[in-house]
């Protein structure tokens, strides 16, 4: 199944996000060897140059490393992964808070709603 992309951002950035997510949730485990650029390009149904650009960006972020003999692997550096997770989480939280503010909801109410949401999640877990 080809990956889905939206039309407002460059595709290589969306690939970076997708692969980053797969690394953060361990779909791509630490130290795992990644498929070749061509195979990844076919999987995602994108241009190989675009995939190359995304992988170069992931290397720069320290999430992917290139070894001479084994090709590209997911990093084994835990601090790089937790740093990426941290910045992703910060970004999500900031976006969320901004949207809540735009809705006119106070910080206090946001916190109580989040707590309620957590309770609900717990209930669902019990019921299911």
């Amino acid at each position, binding site marked *: 199944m080809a990956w889905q*992309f939206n*039309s*407002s*951002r460059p*595709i290589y950035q969306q690939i970076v996000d997708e692969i980053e997510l797969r690394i953060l949730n361990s779909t791509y485990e630490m130290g795992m060897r990644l498929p070749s650029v*061509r195979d990844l390009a*076919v999987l995602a*149904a994108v*241009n190989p*140059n675009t995939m190359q650009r995304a992988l170069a960006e992931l290397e720069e972020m320290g999430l992917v490393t290139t070894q001479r003999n084994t090709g590209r692997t997911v990093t084994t550096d835990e601090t790089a992964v937790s740093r990426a997770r941290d910045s992703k989480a910060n970004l999500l939280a900031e976006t969320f808070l901004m949207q809540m503010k735009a809705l006119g909801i106070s910080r206090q109410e946001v916190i109580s709603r989040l707590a309620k949401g957590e309770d609900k999640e717990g209930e669902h877990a019990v019921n299911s």
Partner: protein
Amino acid sequence: MQSILEARALSKRYGSTLALNNVDLTLPKGKIIGLLGPNGSGKTTLLKIVAGLLTPTNGIVLVDNQPVGEGTKALISYLPERTYLPDWMTVEDCLEYFTDFYADFDMARAREMLSRLNVPANKRMKQLSKGTREKMQLVLVMSRRAKLYLLDEPIGGVDPATRDYILDTIIGNYDNEATILISTHLIADVEKVLDEFLFLKEGVITMHDTTDNVRETQGKSVDELFREVFRC
């Protein structure tokens, strides 16, 4: 950057119709480029001139720094709008035909791709469906180790699954030294495989940019941009 294709002041006139109007164009090596425009905008005319099948009324075209001619035909692999494989030929005949004609034809690669299509080697062209014949033609064209591939509407008139097979074949066989120029008006399907695109409108190139740049600067896809530019 080195260019694979250069056109200067290129025009083509059919009687009173100006199909190409003073086109200047430089295409780099190693890119997949979309030639995008509505029906009748001059896409096929441009491809045929580059392939050496039509003579321009004015202007020059250089492929890998050589004027279009016998020498450049060896560098170009061209997929015409309609397949030209004769009805009586078998799949095997077609493979041999391409081997005879083109020194850069990679038989192993062609067989590998055909095996995925499940086409028996002894089938004749007239026994194949239209879609399968088109896929067969594309496999032959993409099995050459050319420097420039010209694909005229490779995904027009086929079902979505076939479209995926065709795009897979193009991506999977692409080597990063070669340039692929794909003409189409089905932009949404092709956009994610393109590095660059050209808009061709009434014989004039109105835009030449990278797909990333359009998204970065305008926050929209090439498909959306096309609908705005070519709104009827």
